């Protein structure tokens, strides 16, 4: 999952980015409204976390322009404004959620996860392909009865592929969703990661391959052999 955080207070932005990254999200961040709008329009973020009082372009204006540009990325307003009027105005502008500062970081992460589930129209935190199950709430993966331990990045890759089960995902899409700006990967990094993931989720020699390659197009997950 790839997120955008637009928050002008660096003292707050830094720990939030750290927490989100530690929770397996790829995070881009900025402290400027205009730059945030540009990034949101350029990339397909799974969730955008937006402050309201921002330099150069107000958070509400950023959201308005995003919705005018037909961006359907879920937006969570993260702001100090706590009045009912402000919350209602924010939600009416097209925000999907509203969180008042100060907040518990766990709550922010839970809300971000809920918003990303809503984006992919999944109610349950559990995703499954064949006998492979991924639990987004406990960040755990099981194949049959075997627990599988994955690094944060491989977990994100598997989650992304499972969310788009049966759909071919290009390398570029994977790059955009799994890696943030700072860790812009070379194209073979995606291939290496997919290869590593295949090996990790193959718990025995009899385990059928769940990640398939469409040559020149990308990868997709399916329980059936292609």
């Amino acid at each position, binding site marked *: 999952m790839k997120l955008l955080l637009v928050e002008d207070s660096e003292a707050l932005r830094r720990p939030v980015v750290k927490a989100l990254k530690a929770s397996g999200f790829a995070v881009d961040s900025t402290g400027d409204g205009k730059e945030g709008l540009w990034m949101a329009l350029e990339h397909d973020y799974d969730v955008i976390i937006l402050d309201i009082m921002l*330099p150069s372009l107000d958070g509400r204006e950023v959201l308005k322009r995003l919705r005018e540009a037909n961006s359907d990325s879920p937006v969570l307003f993260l702001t100090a404004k706590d009045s009912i009027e402000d919350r209602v105005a924010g939600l009416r502008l097209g925000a999907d959620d509203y969180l008042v500062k100060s907040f518990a970081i766990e709550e922010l992460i839970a809300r971000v996860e809920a918003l990303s589930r809503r984006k992919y129209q999944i109610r349950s935190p559990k995703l499954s392909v064949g006998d492979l199950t991924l639990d987004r709430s406990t960040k755990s993966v099981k194949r049959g009865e075997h627990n599988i331990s994955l690094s944060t990045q491989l977990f994100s890759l598997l989650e992304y592929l499972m969310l788009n089960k049966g759909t071919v995902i290009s390398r570029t899409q994977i790059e955009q969703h799994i890696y943030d700006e700072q860790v812009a990967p070379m194209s073979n990094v995606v291939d290496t990661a997919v290869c590593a993931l295949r090996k990790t989720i193959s718990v025995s020699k009899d385990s059928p391959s769940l990640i398939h390659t469409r040559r020149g197009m990308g990868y997709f997950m399916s329980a059936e052999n292609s």
Partner: protein
Amino acid sequence: MRSIRNQLLIWLLPSFILIAILASSALYFSEKLRLETNLDNELSKLARAVKLVHNMPRNRLGGPGGGRLSTTERINFLRDDESSEFYLQIWDETEQVVSKSKNLDKEELMLVRAQTQTSGNKTHYDSSFSSGENIRLYSFTILAGPLSSDKYATVAMSKSLVNRQLHHFTVKVIIGSAFCCLLLSVILIFVIKRTLTPVHKLAEQLICIEAGSLDYRLDSDVVPAEISPLVERLNQLLARLAQSFVKERQFSNDLAHELRTPLAAIRTTSEVALKWPEQSTIEDHQYIAESAEQLHNTIDSLLSLARIESAGQEFAFECVDIATIVTECISLKAEQIKKRRLRVTLSANNPHIIKSDPYLLRIIISNLINNAVEYAPTNTEVSINANLKDSLLTVSNSAPNLNDNDIKAMFDRLWRKDGSRTDKTHVGLGLSIAYTASQALSLNLIATLSNDKLLHLSLMKR
């Protein structure tokens, strides 16, 4: 509670009743006069008939047996209206009764001779019989001519009919007056109700106005002219109230941002450090310290403002040298002045003594100088003048980014030109504190922006 309706009813109803009583009395007396005049005319006619009968030979009256008729019958013969009974009594010169009508029986009429009349032209009198019957009488002289002596006569008529008519008229007048009073009261209540309808509607509209609907304005076109000024005043009051609410809301929003953002930063940094200790760095501690300092500055400034606001008149006025305070404040900012390459010019007599509270005056001057040094563009001039005619002190600096709206708002609590409030080093309370302190010292702090974008902050005597 005093009610306009009750007040009007209390004043107007008795007035109506009084007017009705006066009108009824006037009608009564005019009717009484009319009836008595009619009776007097009857008596006068009767007197003429008596005179005619006495001066006329008996056989002159027409009709069969005219010569055998009694005096009363002959008089009746001459009268147009024979239905009303009359009384007649005649005296000779020696006031001996010569004749009297039979219907008098034992009763005697009063003779009032012309020479005994004392009340000018008054010739008609009221009297009564021993039976209690009221009568109206008229005395006159029957001139007999040269051959016989004059006689005196009195004619009278009963007043019973007049009294009865007057009684009926009085009853009618009383009933009419009561009905008029009742009708007027109903009309009054209806008119008051209708007249006060706009006031009731106004009250209902005002009840509906709440904190969230202060942009609502009362319609002054549909109310009577008398309460139109009241509606206009209320609308002005609502506008001021709405403005105050907007300012208060802006203040609470700004305060929430000033307090919650550093608090959120401290909380999130701590939570992340606890949950993912491997992610924690020394920089995080630095950010926590900065956020705590930011919180401290905000709370400190707010407390200063609150203390000045609540200080009342507890100030120690003494002779203070403005030039010394200005010089000290400039020296405190010397490093920043040098760093920002500002040219600070001071124009003040040395010493420049005024009577004021030194503590508050220092707060005002230091905030004005701090503001100029912080926000004047680098490599520009900051001018401090204590020798101007109209002001105690004026601090001027270039402010190319300010506009007239900023000038109006710059003394508001937590106001910042930067709407996003990203800058952590300023809270937006300095000028507000200076303004409040100047108010406490009965001074005016006025901001003006000249055409060449020079901001002048002037401290003036009221």
